């Protein structure tokens, strides 16, 4: 792609490449690097994965037990995070957690796991 886009992007080509050809790379890559060596910022990884792990637990309860237990689990999870873990959602970023709060959740993840085990027995995970 770097050779193809040496003089400009895909729009400047006389015959623009199709999606199958450029695979969404429509400008000249500025650094030729192995894709496996591209990593998001650790802070962004922490922010994203922490929240999605918590949400995944709610989805698991919904999947195995139904809607009402999932709502109960979500409420208990919020209480656990606030009272036991000691974190509160930030008033920005749609109520997500900050990096330090995510680290605290990771340090005290056993509380979340114990709560999840009360709703979804560990035996179900082997199915």
């Amino acid at each position: 792609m770097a050779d193809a886009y040496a003089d400009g992007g895909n729009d400047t080509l006389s015959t623009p490449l199709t999606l199958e050809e450029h695979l969404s790379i429509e400008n000249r890559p500025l650094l030729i690097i192995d894709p496996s060596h591209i990593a998001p910022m650790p802070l962004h990884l922490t922010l994203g994965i922490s929240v999605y792990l918590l949400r995944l637990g709610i989805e698991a309860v919904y999947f195995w037990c139904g809607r009402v237990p999932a709502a109960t689990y979500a409420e208990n999870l919020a209480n656990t995070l606030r009272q036991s873990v000691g974190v509160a959602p930030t008033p920005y970023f749609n109520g997500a957690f900050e990096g330090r709060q995510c680290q605290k959740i990771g340090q005290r993840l056993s509380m979340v796991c114990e709560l999840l085990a009360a709703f979804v027995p560990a035996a179900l995970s082997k199915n």
Partner: protein
Amino acid sequence: MPPKTLATFCSTWPSFSVVVDVLATVCLRHSEASSRLIALALQDKSLAFVCYGCSRACVRVSRGAERWTSAVSAGVIQANDDTNWLVGRVRRCSKRAFVDTVGVSWGLCRPCYASSPARARAAPPPPPQMCEAAPPSNGWRAVSVCGVQEAPAEHTLFFEQRLPSVNIAPRAGIVAMTAALRAARLSYASLEGPQVAEVAQLVKKHLTGTRPDEIVVTFANGRRRKYARVYRPAKDKFGPRQVRRRAALAATTIGRLFAIDPGMLAASMADAARRAQASGGIAVAPAAVLAALPVRLQNQFLMDNGVSGSLWRRFRLLLGPIGADLATGQTLRADRRAAEAELRNAATTNGEGAFLVAPRVALQSMIDDLVATEQFVERFERGADGADIATASPFLGHPSPTEMRAADVRCVQVCFGLDKGGAQSTTKAVLSCVNQERPCSRGNTLLYGVFPAAEDDHAALSAMADVYVPDLDTLRMGGVDVDGVRRAVQLILTGDYQFTTTWCGHLGVSRKMPCQRCTAMMRLTKTNGELIAIYGNMQNGSRAGGKPRTIDHFK
């Protein structure tokens, strides 16, 4: 409120005339006034009596009294305040005493008789000498205090005191005020419950407001007693309690900072407190100095030492009451904005960036320092089985930066990232060596360059890449020395998602194949069903099925 309190109140209230009107509405009644009230209100004085226990006029429980009450209620008898007062006080006379000079009977009402057996058994007091000239009244608009020359009964709250007859007019000067005070003191026992409460409230409010240092009280026996305020130090009593509270606060705060066992933490804190107490205390943060620090200086301290807002907040919390003198985060931000707006601090740019001339030298110095201080940490890649891949082969150099090194070649992992922000929008390029603890810490990174950029689009990043990429390619081809051994440089591109996608040639973060690791498409639409079958769908999560991208896609 006891009479002593009233006397105290009177002796400490120099401007009593102001509230004479208030006390006048309280409507004092004493025995003589009650007798005159009966004489005035009733033609048949035998229908009522004066209780020498509570000093109040009472209507007897009899048929004649009942007819009189009914006549008053029906309006047959013209009613006034005195009459209405009597109608509401119907009581049985349990003990007869005497008939005074006005012709009114005295006795004990049933509640007074029942409340004190000693008083019920005692002989009744002699009849008082009534003053015929005084106008009968039950109020304070013109209160006569004559007729109290006789000693009151033992069970009453009257003081034995001889007073001249004087009519009191509100706000009539010091003489009237003094007489009013005496009359109030004498008539205090005849007040109703709510009236007593009201006077008590007035007294309490006055004493609370003035807080006199000395109070002189003259008792009925003529003794004068002076009450002076005595200050007793309570440090010994409350000091240990405050120490325990601060120790608990410190233990809680330290517990948030360090994830260690609470028991060990409590023991450590107790040991530190004991040592400090034995050595006479440690002045960690003098309060006077902290209070004298200007906000601008505190801001400068934060910036010079890289103190974040959360760390500053914990620092204030740890200091406790002393920390309240430090500026809050909100104050610091406001001062920072004010400093940025000042002309001398205005940041300008000529559109050109600044960057390290020799990043390789800077990186090599960092690695040498890590090796010298034994902080260099080996990092290994993991194979398909998850196990670390051992590296033992030497690095002999690469002819091309895009050439992949062999898996067993020793390497140093170097991160290159950009981030945009700041009051003057600039993009900062950062280099960091992963082979150390906390490589993302700001103190462990190298500021590679600063470029003014309002947007981090492809054009702006291209201008930066023209500066950075040749040096990075040189690093990748030549490697760096670690403890005298040449190693390959494994470059890791990091940053936020928009930067990495733009850097790799995507038009934006929401292209049809947004992932940089695989070719999975964003979502299934009406037209891309065939492509989804080939390249995968991100909505399927771990079963997306995208094909892994390779370095050849970028070449």
